[in-house]
């Protein structure tokens, strides 16, 4: 796929840099569309507000990974994300899952990139779920590694005897986490897809 950024990459950068003006522009351009979509599909204003926020957060988390380039218009990409999220929500709430939508929104590239973003969210949920099942000391330790704290500082903060001990504990905890994740029935569906 062509990796040349679309001019709408500016919205991705704005979300990453908390650019209030451009983020406001996203709301100006798309809030009405999201509200109409949600109201047509079993939801209200509060649902639309939540969906808007959650979809933007999904984009931000994907973009934080560093290898993300928006090569399509933001609107189509955003549409596929909020649609997928709303379907998920309806499923959890046990409501009807037939989506009434505007026609003519299909764009393969937008959909492909959006699927990558929603899969990233699914993987995050999978990883978090098993992370929560680790022992308290593993969670505490790994959380600091995910926050990118240098191992030396982790040693000091958690009062480990040496950096080597920290590393040994990290390897064991990460190993346990990998095993839990790989045993999950959703793992095969989610692995190796981006």
């Amino acid at each position, binding site marked *: 796929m062509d990796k040349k950024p679309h001019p709408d990459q500016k919205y991705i950068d704005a*979300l990453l840099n*908390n650019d*209030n003006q451009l*983020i*406001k522009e996203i*709301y*100006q351009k798309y*809030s009405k569309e999201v*509200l109409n979509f949600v109201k047509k599909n079993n939801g209200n*204003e*509060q649902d*639309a*507000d939540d969906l*808007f*926020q959650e979809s*933007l*957060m999904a984009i*931000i*988390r*994907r973009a*934080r*990974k*560093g290898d993300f380039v928006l090569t399509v218009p933001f609107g189509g990409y955003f549409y596929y994300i909020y649609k997928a999220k709303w379907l998920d929500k309806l499923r*959890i*709430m*046990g409501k009807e899952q037939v989506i009434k939508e505007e026609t003519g929104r299909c764009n393969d590239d937008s959909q492909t990139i959006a699927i990558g973003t929603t899969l*990233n969210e699914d*993987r*995050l*949920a*999978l*990883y978090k*779920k098993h*992370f*929560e*099942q680790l022992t*308290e000391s593993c*969670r505490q330790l*790994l*959380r600091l*590694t*995910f*926050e*990118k704290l240098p191992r030396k500082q982790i040693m000091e903060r958690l009062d480990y005897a040496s950096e080597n001990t920290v590393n*040994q504990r*990290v*390897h*064991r905890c*990460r*190993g346990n986490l*990998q*095993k839990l*994740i*790989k*045993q*999950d*029935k*959703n793992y095969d569906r989610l*692995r*190796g897809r981006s």
Partner: protein
Amino acid sequence: MTDNDYKQIDEYVNGQLAGKALADFEAQLLTNKTLAEEVALYKDVGETLTTNYAYEKEDAELKQLFNKLGKDYFPKEEAVEKTINVEQDNTNIVQLKPVIEKNDSNDSSGDGGSSGIRWLKPVIALAVAALIVLLIFQPWQRSLIDNYYEPYALNITQRTGSNMTALIQAQKAYHSGDYASALPVFEQYPDNAEVQLTKGNAAYNLGKIDEAIATFQQVASGDSVYVPAANWYLALAYLKKEQPEKAKAALDNIPEGSSYYAKAQELRNKI
């Protein structure tokens, strides 16, 4: 995979392998599919959880901005709050005046029952005052909490095993408002902080505020990522019990980097 394998993977992913060790490891990656898969997962788990845990401050700022824009572009709460206030004001004035004016006109008509009505006036005034107090303070107190309270959105997906199936069912019941069915299932997961947080919410919605407080306190005293959320719900439960000082103390325990920080401060100022 052994601890030593994960040591090598960790060093490789963090760019700490060099020279022959690096060349050997990369050669293994080309032929050993299991190892390659472990490395890919190790990398992705690290990067993905980093996007969630390393940006608490940024996320709190974004949340604040989104909430502000949400109020402008998805108007709802404020409109509801205003309507309630206007209704209360109208109720107070409109109901009080006609009662008194009507009585006054009866008095001036020289009707035989006028002295009785005159005697009733202070009683009526007292009753109306009591009504006003009820109308103003009770609904106001409720709306403050209710404007802030939203049930915690548990989102557990497709776990294996029958117990997990029960949990998924309980989650479904919880989201549909059937808290009584969900609560006993949640009780079976005492070590899962997120489920316990949800259990507290279920108890709260069933009016079991003391039980909700005990559950939130337990989660808040742990070291999970749900501590700020537990303090948030703990504060709302204390408000329900009309214990504002305790509610403030719980809100004060929410750290600045938390996504609950902004609304915690906002609520604290209103208590």
